[in-house]
C-alpha cells in the first residue's frame, strides 16, 4: 500500500480548507489512505523566488523532515510541486521532489484513473496556471480529469495560456503590471459566460478571484473540488 502524505500548502492552510478536503475525498473514493502530517508548513517557494535562498533552504529542509518517510506526497498545487522538484535538488540536495505529485499527476500517472466518479452539472472554464503547466509539465492533465466529470460543460478560456499576473511577490512589487495582466484575464474569464473558473493552484485563484469579485465573472474554484463533487 502506498503511503500518501498530503501536503496542503500554506495558502490552503490559511485560506482554503475546502481544497485539501476535496483531495482527501477524491483519494479516499479511489481507495487510498491519506495521512496529514501536522508539522507541515510551507515549501519555501515564496522565499526562493523572492531571492531568499537561505530562508527557502530552511523551509525545504523542514519539508524533507516532515515528508521524507512517505512513498508519495500529493498536493493540490502545481507551483509547490514544481518548487520541490525543480529547486530542492540545488537548494538542499534532496530528490524528494520526485515523490511530490500534483493531484492530477498522481491520479493519471500513478493511480491510472481519468474518471474519478465526480458529477458537477455546471459550466466551467479552465485556466492552466503557469508553474503547473510549464515548470511542472502538467500539460492538460487537470483538464483531462475535468472532461471525465459527469454533467460538466467545459468552455474554452480565450488566451488561456497567458499568465494571470500573480507571480507571488511580483503582484506587490510590480502591482500595476500585475493588475494590468489580471484585468485582461478577468475580461477573458467573464467573456466565457461560465459559472466557474477552475485552476490547479489556489494562489493564482486568489489573484484571479480577487479581481473577478470586483469585475464580475465566474466564481473561482480549485479543480479538486469539482472532482470531489457528486452533487
Amino acid at each position, binding site marked *: 500500500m502506498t503511503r500518501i502524505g498530503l501536503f496542503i500548502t500554506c495558502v490552503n492552510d490559511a485560506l482554503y480548507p475546502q481544497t485539501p478536503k476535496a483531495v482527501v475525498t477524491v483519494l479516499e473514493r479511489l481507495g487510498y489512505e491519506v495521512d496529514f502530517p501536522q508539522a507541515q508548513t510551507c515549501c519555501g517557494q515564496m522565499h526562493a523566488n523572492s531571492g531568499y535562498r537561505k530562508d527557502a533552504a530552511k523551509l525545504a529542509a523542514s519539508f524533507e523532515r516532515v515528508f521524507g518517510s512517505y512513498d508519495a506526497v500529493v498536493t493540490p498545487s502545481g507551483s509547490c510541486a514544481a518548487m520541490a522538484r525543480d529547486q530542492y535538488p540545488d537548494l538542499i540536495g534532496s530528490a524528494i521532489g520526485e515523490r511530490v505529485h500534483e493531484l492530477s499527476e498522481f491520479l493519471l500517472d500513478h493511480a491510472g484513473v481519468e474518471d474519478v466518479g465526480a458529477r458537477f452539472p455546471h459550466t466551467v472554464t479552465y485556466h492552466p496556471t503557469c508553474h503547473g503547466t510549464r515548470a511542472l509539465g502538467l500539460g492538460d492533465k487537470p483538464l483531462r480529469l475535468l472532461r471525465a466529470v459527469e454533467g460538466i460543460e467545459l468552455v474554452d478560456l480565450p488566451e488561456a495560456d497567458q*499568465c494571470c499576473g500573480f507571480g507571488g511577490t511580483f503582484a506587490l512589487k510590480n502591482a500595476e503590471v500585475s493588475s494590468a495582466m489580471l484585468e485582461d484575464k478577468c475580461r477573458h474569464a467573464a467573456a466565457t459566460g461560465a459559472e466557474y473558473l477552475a485552476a490547479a493552484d489556489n494562489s493564482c485563484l486568489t489573484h484571479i478571484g480577487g479581481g473577478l469579485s470586483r469585475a464580475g465573472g465566474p466564481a473561482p474554484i480549485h479543480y479538486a473540488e469539482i472532482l470531489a463533487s457528486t452533487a
Partner: protein
Amino acid sequence: MSTAFPKAAKVALGMPQLRSNLAHATGTIRGKRAGVVGELDDWERLRDTAAAIKADVQHRMPELALAFERNATAAGATVHWARDAAEANAIAARLVREAGADEVVKVKSMATQEIELNEHFEAEGLAAWETDLAELIVQLAEDKPSHILVPAIHYNRTEIRDIFRGSMADAPEGLTDDPAALAEAARLHLRRRFLSAKVAVSGANFAVAETGSLVVVESEGNGRMCLTMPETLISVVGVEKLLPRFEDLEVFMQLLPRSSTGERMNPYTSVWTGAAEGDGPRDVHVILLDNGRTDVLADEVGRQALSCIRCSACLNVCPVYERTGGHAYGHVYPGPIGAILAPQLEPGRHDDLPYASSLCGACYEVCPVKIDIPEVLVHLRQTGPHQAGERVAMSAATTVMARPRLWRAALGAARLFSRPWRGRGFMRRLPWPGSKWTSSRDMPVPPGESFRDWWKERER
C-alpha cells in the same frame, strides 16, 4: 535597490496607444512564430543542439576568439580587441577618420546600441546614419529602440508618418500612412546615403571561428547595401557571437528566422570572410567586444544569458513586456532576456529587473537556445540586494513557518483578526503593505474552520 522599473512601467501602463500598439504587434509575431515553429518536427532537437553549441562556445571562448582572429586576419581583415564600450567607440571613430570620412551608414546592430556608438560619434563630430527602417524611424524621432528586433514597435503607422513628415527633410509631399508609401519614402531617403557612404558600421549575428567569417541576417537588404558598397567596413561583434564551425550555422539559420520574424527563411543573409579584391569593401575591420561579457562567464547559472541570439521571441511572448514596452526596462536589452542580461553586464545597476517577471516561463518555452530565463531570474534575485524592510518581514515569516507550533498560532491569529469580515467573504481594503494587493484585488477572508480543525475532528 532600484525601483526604476515599477515606476517606468506605471507610466507606460498609462499610455493606451502604446499598449494597443504593443499588444497588436507582439500578438501578430507570436502567431507567425508559432505557425512556422510548428512545421518542424525536430524543433526540440534543434534547440538542444543550439544550446549545446553555445555552451561549448562559453567553455572555449578564449581559444575560439583567438582562432577567429587568426583566420579573419589571414583572410585580410584587421581584428581589434575592445575591453569595454569606450575602447570600442574610440577604435571605431579612429578607423572612420583614417578612412577620410566624417559619416557612416549603419546596419542594425545591438552591439553598437549597447556601446552607444551613435552618441559617441556625434560627440566626436561624426554622423552615423541608421539604414534599417525601424532604426531609422527611431533615429528620426530622436527616440530609443524599445524592442531588440523591432525597435519602433511602440509606434503605429500613423505615428511613423508623422515622424517622417516632421523629421525627414526629403519626405514626399502628401505622404500617407500606407505601409508601402512609408517604405518607399525611406528607400528614397536611404538610397542617397548608400551611394555616398565611404564607411559602414555593422554588428554580426554570428562570427565563425574556423573560417574567420562574419554573418549578418536581415530582412530589408539595407544590410547588404552597407556590407558591400562602402570601401571600409567596421563590424562591432560581442565575443559571445562566436561559433566554432561553419556548419553550426545550419542549426542557427533554422532557429533564428523562425524565432524572430516568424519566417522560415530571412530574405538576406550576408557572409563575408576578410577582404576580397574587387568584391565588397577593401578595408575590413572587426572589433571584438567584451564589455562585461567575460565577467558573466564566471557565473555558472547566469552565463547561459550569453547564449542569446537576439531573436526577441521572449519579448514577444512576455506578458510584462507586452504591457510595459521596452523603454520601461531602462536598458538596450529589454524584456525577459534584458532582465537577466542587463544586471549581469552592468553589475550593481538594474537590480530591480530580475523582479520584472511573474516567472510564468513563457520565455523559456520559446527560447531557441533554451536559456532557462526563470532559473536565471531567480538566481539573480538570490544573489542580488534586498530591501531592508522586506528582509525583516521575510525572515520573520521564515521563523514562523519553520516552527509548526508558531505557524499554527499565526493561522489562529489571522482567523481572529479577520473575524469581522467573515460574513462578507472578501476584504476590500487592507493597510500597507496589504494595500498593494487590495489596490486592484479583493482578499479572501480566512475561514472559521481550518483544514486542521476538520482533520482533527475526523481523526477522533
